[in-house]
């Protein structure tokens, strides 16, 4: 075989035989799905997979940070209680109404009906990640719920995602976007 102009061919095939071998390899490549260039449909599916993988990773980092904060806060709390707040603890012990926790600020909910919920969700995730925000996604049937934060008032970087979700520029805090399929589209 005269491969890449190499001489001293050890196989000893003539030109016709070599062409037949080349055709057979080419057929086998086709059967195995091997192509010279990456097909467009693979590029698109890879883009989507990558988007989801990076979104998941940012969520993982968030959870790790949250756990670290809780542990640190707990440790400091224990220390303070032991060494500094002991009299106060004794004084308030037994009072059932004494512990009042600050409630979490509620997340605003936005409902969106669209022809292709998945496509829309990918677009929103992409915009959110580009604006350095955190996104959590959940899919149930044709319904996708995205939990996005933190929205900042008048942020220029977040203008495009606010526009996509139909929010005004003063929207702030966290948003739960429920994306459903619009039966009319």
């Amino acid at each position, binding site marked *: 075989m005269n491969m*890449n102009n190499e001489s001293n061919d050890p196989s000893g095939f003539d030109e016709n035989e070599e062409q037949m*071998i080349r055709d057979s390899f080419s057929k*086998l490549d086709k059967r195995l799905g091997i192509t010279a260039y990456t097909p467009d449909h*693979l590029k698109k599916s890879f883009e989507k997979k990558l988007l989801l993988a990076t979104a998941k990773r940012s969520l993982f980092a968030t959870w790790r940070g949250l756990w670290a904060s809780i542990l640190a806060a707990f440790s400091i709390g224990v220390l303070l209680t032991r060494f500094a707040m002991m009299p106060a603890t004794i004084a308030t012990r037994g009072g059932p109404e004494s512990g009042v926790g600050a409630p979490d600020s509620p997340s605003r909910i936005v409902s969106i009906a669209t022809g292709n919920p998945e496509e829309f969700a990918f677009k929103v995730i992409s915009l959110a990640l580009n604006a*350095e925000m955190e996104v959590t996604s959940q899919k149930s049937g044709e319904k996708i719920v995205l939990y996005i934060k933190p929205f900042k008032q008048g942020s220029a970087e977040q203008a495009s995602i606010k526009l996509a979700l139909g929010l005004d520029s003063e929207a702030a805090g966290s948003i739960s976007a429920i994306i459903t399929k619009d039966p009319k589209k």
Partner: protein
Amino acid sequence: MLNQIEIEAVYINLVGSDVARKRLAINKIYEAFQPNMFTKLRYKYQDLSENEAQDIVQDAFIKIATSNSLPKKPEALVSWVLEVVDNTALDLFKKAYKRYEIPLPEDENEGDHGTSFHFNTERYEDTEDCVSKGVLSFSKKFPLHAAALSMSLAKKSTIDISQMLKRTENATWTFLHEGKKKVAPYLKHCFEALN
């Protein structure tokens, strides 16, 4: 394949902190290296469906995004990518084979297939059919040699083939030479019958 300027641009985006640019870099890496990596892996793992094999190779490229290590300089980018993707893909293919209870392909270096080969006496429709079956048998016995020969016959550059094989260019020539010697016994009888 990426040229030097593209490699440097991809490297800067990959190691930087901008998430969107990092994603662009990984998409570019996938586009550039998927054909050769898929050729190499697909020749070895032929028993899965094409879609499943493509899925596994994609998942292996996704590992680049989640890997904790990064190449230290642009010159190390290509070898780092191929190492990460190759190792991840091999693990994933092995898991898939185990899941379907398919026996794993033999290692090419186990035994001396070249000298002990005898073509089977099955009937062939014609010479073309005989060559196709010979190439298929060869590819199952020597998948890496077959992948390299396939790329060489498809006029891929020696640099492409050597990257895929993780060998130097000289070692790649030797490997292709060996491949040509190994494939001959699988096909000679087809042409002898013709003459």
